[in-house]
């Protein structure tokens, strides 16, 4: 019997262990990383380097193949098939093998130690970005050794922003500097918009004050019972346009006067507007479906004009849908008007992509081709690369006026209008955006669909950078980050619950509960981290 028992214990242990294993991540085969601060192992350049000529012109080495991992599943992996990447391949003598994936795949790369040559990630706040020092080459070292021309094409402010201990490791696309904001080439993307036919029919309504807003929505409901009076972005990618975007519309400050973290969610002006939205919802003028619709459903509703008015966050991303509706119903097209404004007389402070940009590109310190890698960076950042990726071949696709403005050729226009597949696949216009920047996009009015021009004009004077508060959350894995995660989860529920609250009393109670939750989850410790991060940011920006 004893043996039978031990066999059973063994079986039980086996089952226990194997089921436990299922929940575990896989192991690491690679050796531990060597710190990259010592870059004496960078091989010498095989060509003469020069400050005034791009290195790719002097580098006569044979065709090099680089693996480029992009941490986004939607990225088009083709290389060398379309007109744009064909030209890149020819100029740089490089073949790029794109690999795409999500965080899980990225983690596997790190765990195995088998890194691709180039890595593009999307979150400057992630552990991956913050520990870039351990796995990426400093761009300065690469530029000094292989391609000093890089300094001519890279933005100094952006490089500064991405410095870790004195050296920059990543270079983002769409990184807007203070100078970009001033240049007028960066266009706003948020606006309160309304259907023109609705606006004409409802007469004089004031959407700028909370009271007027509630009344205006009721007026819309009366005249257009089939439309949903008020809509906003879907919640699948975050807190819709009812959080940051509304706060920007109200000009809610980003820091306190003494440059400390300011909780914009609890700003009294913003809370007043949330209460207005509550009243709109209670009157049936916000549909509950807006809280459950996914991105596709929202897009469909925009392109069919289901909403009479919208708090539109990122109109450029919804350009196709807005244009769709405008083309079919020119008389009802959406336009931006003054609405959702501060009750305290503050002007809107619309934001755009910040200095952190969007997708950040790195050169892995495991690459065997560091020279080629920095050449790719330099080429794509240069005027030549930017014009190519934004507009295609000069002459064939576009012409440039004396003032630098770009116009499509007839040939290009014809393809754009009649063969969108070829436009995207064969010519890949404006799609190779790993180093893209709005400054170039703005050279051509046609970069944006006509439907959003008026909206961009409406907000142009309200653009204001928010660089100080970029990436100020506590590091992942710390006690503060966990607490913040819990608070954000709670806020997500709270914000929608506030709008869906039955009456003012429930509204107040929900808000009070959230404030208590913040306190219970050590908000003061989190804010301390944020404060010190704001301070560090301001130092980088030269604002201290």
């Amino acid at each position, binding site marked *: *019997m*004893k*043996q*039978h028992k031990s066999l059973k214990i063994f*079986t*039980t242990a086996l*089952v*226990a*262990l*194997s*089921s*436990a*294993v*299922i*929940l*575990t*991540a*896989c*192991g*690491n085969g*690679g*050796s*531990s*990383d060597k710190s990259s601060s010592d870059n004496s192992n960078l091989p010498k350049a095989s060509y003469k380097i020069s400050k005034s000529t791009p290195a790719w012109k002097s580098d006569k080495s044979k065709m090099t193949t680089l693996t480029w991992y992009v941490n986004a599943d939607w990225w088009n992996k083709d290389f060398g098939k379309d007109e744009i990447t064909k030209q890149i391949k020819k100029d740089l003598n490089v073949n790029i093998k794109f690999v795409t994936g999500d*965080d*899980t795949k*990225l*983690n596997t790369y*790190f*765990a195995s*130690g088998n890194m691709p040559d180039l890595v593009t990630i999307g979150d400057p706040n*992630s*552990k*991956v970005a913050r*520990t870039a020092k*351990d*796995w990426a080459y400093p761009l300065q070292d690469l530029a000094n050794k292989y391609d000093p021309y890089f300094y001519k094409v890279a933005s100094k402010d952006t490089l500064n922003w991405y410095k870790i201990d004195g050296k920059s490791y990543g270079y983002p696309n769409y990184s807007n500097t203070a100078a970009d904001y001033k240049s007028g080439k960066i266009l706003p993307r948020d606006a309160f918009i309304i259907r023109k036919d609705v606006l004409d029919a409802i007469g004089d309504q004031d959407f700028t004050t909370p009271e007027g807003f509630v009344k205006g929505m009721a007026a819309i409901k009366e005249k257009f019972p089939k439309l949903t009076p008020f809509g906003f972005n879907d*919640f699948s990618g975050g807190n819709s346009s009812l959080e940051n975007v509304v706060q920007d519309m109200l000009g809610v400050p980003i820091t306190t006067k003494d440059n400390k973290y300011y909780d914009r969610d609890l700003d009294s002006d913003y809370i007043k507007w949330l209460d207005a939205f509550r009243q709109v919802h209670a009157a049936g003028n916000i*549909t*509950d*479906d807006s*809280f*459950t619709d*996914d991105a596709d459903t929202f897009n469909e509703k925009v392109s069919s004009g289901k909403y009479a008015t919208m708090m539109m966050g990122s109109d450029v991303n919804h350009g196709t849908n807005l244009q769709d509706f405008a083309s079919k119903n020119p008389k009802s097209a959406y336009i931006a008007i003054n609405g959702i404004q501060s009750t305290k007389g503050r002007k809107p402070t619309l934001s755009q992509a910040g200095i952190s940009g969007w997708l950040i590109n790195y050169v892995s310190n495991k690459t065997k081709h560091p020279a080629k890698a920095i050449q790719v960076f330099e080429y794509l950042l240069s005027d030549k690369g930017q014009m190519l990726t934004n507009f295609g071949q000069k002459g064939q696709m576009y012409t440039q006026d004396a003032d630098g403005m770009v116009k499509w050729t007839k040939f290009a226009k014809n393809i754009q209008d009649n063969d969108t597949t070829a436009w995207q696949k064969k010519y890949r216009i404006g799609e190779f955006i790993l180093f893209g920047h709005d400054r170039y996009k703005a050279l051509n009015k046609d970069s944006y669909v006509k439907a959003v021009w008026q909206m961009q004009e409406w907000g142009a004077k309200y653009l204001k950078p928010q660089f100080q508060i970029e990436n100020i959350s506590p590091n*992942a*894995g710390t*006690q503060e*980050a*966990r607490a913040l*995660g*819990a608070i954000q*989860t709670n806020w*997500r*529920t709270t*914000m*929608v*619950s506030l709008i*869906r609250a039955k009456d003012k009393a429930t509204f107040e109670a929900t808000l009070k509960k959230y404030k208590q939750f913040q306190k219970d989850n050590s908000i003061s410790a989190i804010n301390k981290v944020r404060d010190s991060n704001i301070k560090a940011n301001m130092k980088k920006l030269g604002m201290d």
Partner: protein
Amino acid sequence: MEKANKRSTGVRIKDWCRAWARQWQLQTMVLPGIIAMIIFNFIPIYGLSLAFRSYTVTSTMASAPWVGLENFKIIINDKYFWESVQNTIGISAIKLTIEFFLPIIIAIMIFELKWTPFKKVVQTITYLPHFLSWIILGGMLITWLSSNGMLNQLLNLIGIATKDNHILNANSYWGIASLSDVWKEAGWGTILYLATMSKIDPTYYEAAEMDGASKLRQIWSITIPEMSSIISLNLILSVSGLFNSNLDQTLVLMNSQNQPKAEVINSYVYRVGLTQGDFSYATAVGLGVSIISVVLLIITNTVTKKLNDNKSVL
């Protein structure tokens, strides 16, 4: 081998070796399986050490610093974790109860159908939802449950005027989650039972009929006892799966309003581990859950053994 237990250890080992040598051909056949298990099941156990370390994406498994039971201490005070445990048990318990009994009943009903074409149609229809992924089914459900969706239109038809978006209602989430899962899987669950039933000797039924047993009596005294071992196996498997909540379903159906009732352990681990990059903590949660699952498995095994004349499935 059973008789060896009274003898000394040395003799026992000797006996064991002799027995092994006698059947060495058979024993070698087991080897590949054991090796595969060591590689794929035992070596990765090393990864569990993550739960006791502070691991980050970029550090290697060996270089992450040890933090002892730190991660487990945090679990104890984590409101969202305990909420997810509650939801997991709640939803699973409802699913388990219905999904355990319903397939047995459906299987018996299908088995008793005499007209084959109709039987086939019923089977196909009940299997069908199983083949749709939760991504598709979830999207359908959200539309059906929305304010102008199918459900509200049906309710309006029968006179209950409503414009509620049901998926936003946290209190109905457990019902929605478990019933939709039952609808998806109940038909598929009958396959095992039908296969077992087809093996029951038809002469039993003939004899019972001659003795004047009614249909229900036949089901109760022949069909169910014949299926008892497969039923208890299914029970053990599903009880040990009490903590294995449906990740796909949750990710599709969860929204900001039903989250307090919708978040399950799996989605919580996914959110913390992958989207917030907190691997060590997520592993600690996973390890805790596995241990509880194993305990549940052993308990059910013991219980079914008692119920089943001391014959255990494991």
